[in-house]
């Protein structure tokens, strides 16, 4: 196995006044090419873990490592460039007063990775095309787009600096089902075409199964089970994983034409 790009060792996060830690001794390793799904319900600690991995919150104990070194000593810009994020609700994650081109180009400017103005504009056009939008859409503003298109804009922004990892927090939960399918397909395509490694936080085991080779099931701040997605789905070792699987609402079997 290759070295993890991003790694968490014995991560614990306690909040003052709370009897139980939000995260309790969690180990996680993200390796290039092995998309990882973090699955669990509310209170599982998924979002806390994601914040620690993004370096926007610090563990009470334990350590996050990026490219083999502690995050605390890593080059901030290098880390930001290679670890990008997409959130659940594109309505609140896109600045309504910025044009789409400015939004998507922003990480290039702030990380100073896009070269000059012309190169940046080219890169913005390139990533907008990669997510299924048109370069001209850059002149428009977020409110002119539908929820699914806004999520495409958020993905384009994350892709702009050519990250190695894309962390996505419930990226399709706020979307209608047909739009959800389109975004899942887009992420699938980007993972395959760009060699992105996806870390997907979701309550939805089905979505994770379609996008991630590895899965980690969390409950009450701990990892209850982890391993290759195919194994966890077909031979779940933990009773809670079995409950989660059984709870997924399914259409009747053998709808031959639809699958």
């Amino acid at each position: 196995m290759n070295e993890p790009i991003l790694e968490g060792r014995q991560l614990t996060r306690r909040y003052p006044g709370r009897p139980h830690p939000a995260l309790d001794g969690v180990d996680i390793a993200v390796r290039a090419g092995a998309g990882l799904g973090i699955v669990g319900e509310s209170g599982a600690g998924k979002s806390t873990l994601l914040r620690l991995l993004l370096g926007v919150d610090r563990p009470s104990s334990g350590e996050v490592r990026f490219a083999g070194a502690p995050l605390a000593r890593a080059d901030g810009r290098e880390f930001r460039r290679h670890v990008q994020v997409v959130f659940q609700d594109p309505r609140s994650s896109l600045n309504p007063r910025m044009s789409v081109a400015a939004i998507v180009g922003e990480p290039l400017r702030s990380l100073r990775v896009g070269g000059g103005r012309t190169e940046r504009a080219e890169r913005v056009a390139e990533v907008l095309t990669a997510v299924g939008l048109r370069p001209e859409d850059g002149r428009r503003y977020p409110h002119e787009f539908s929820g699914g298109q806004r999520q495409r804009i958020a993905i384009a922004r994350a892709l702009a600096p050519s990250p190695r990892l894309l962390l996505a927090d419930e990226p399709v939960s706020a979307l209608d089902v047909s739009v959800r399918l389109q975004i899942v397909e887009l992420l699938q395509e980007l993972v395959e075409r760009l060699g992105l490694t996806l870390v997907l936080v979701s309550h939805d085991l089905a979505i994770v199964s379609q996008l991630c080779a590895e899965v980690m099931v969390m409950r009450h701040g701990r990892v209850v089970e982890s391993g290759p997605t195919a194994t966890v789905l077909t031979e779940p070792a933990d009773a809670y994983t079995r409950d989660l699987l059984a709870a997924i609402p399914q259409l009747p079997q053998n709808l031959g034409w639809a699958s």
Partner: protein
Amino acid sequence: MTVLETTDLTITLDGQPLVRDMALRLAARDRVGLIGESGSGKSLTALALLGLLPAGMRATGRILIDGRDHRDASDREWRRVRGRTLAMVFQEPLTALDPLMTVGRQIAGPLRLHEGLNRADAQRRAIDWCHRVHLPDPQRLVHALPHQISGGQRQRVALAMALACRPRVLIADEPTTALDVTVQAQILALLDELIEETGVALLFISHDLPVVAGLARHLLVMRDGRLVESGAADNVLRRPRSDYARHLVRSAAQVTRLAPTSVDHGQTRDISDSRMARMPMINESGTEGGQS
């Protein structure tokens, strides 16, 4: 016997139609699912059927409750119908419940109002209902405030409130959308049990086809304010007639599919490695990785 029927229901705001020519019918033990994506008009339809349209919106067409047209009914007439003939459960039980009133009094409220029970009898029935919706320790739980119980328990309370006066139609608008998946599964099982037990007709509204398909025997599909398909659930799922229903079923089938992932480790790593090689590791200071 038909309890609730609407024909040619059109809902307008400032003359703009939001729902057009909607029709549906519910008799005892019917289980109808109303499905559509955001903005399709499904929730507005539900509000119109309950006489709860927001100010400024107008309904035309017929809303028959036990054969009587209620479209222009007064608030007083609607209040007699709501809670007794038609009951409802919404997405977010925290906003549907009064935060300052104990669970027991909230379930007892409609019983006192519609059935004229005294306080002690109403409280006894409330405890009964806590048992029927499988709330833990009902004797104690009736004294709890909504914020002291979990989201799933709150939705159980909302169901108890809705069903306590033995309504003949239950309108449930996204009743499990705000819940975790395992809790959703429990609430759906409870709903199934309760409608079977009580014989109440169900109108289940949701954007989530697999959730609706688990309970409904008849499906209505709405899009852009119009009914685009209506039929036995099995037929709509297996042989959808409209392009839109076909699209919806296919999307839902694919999104909920449990797939052993198609992303193969070795293969993806190769692409990744070659791309890493192509990708200039720019950093003005010339260091790579940045660790000192």
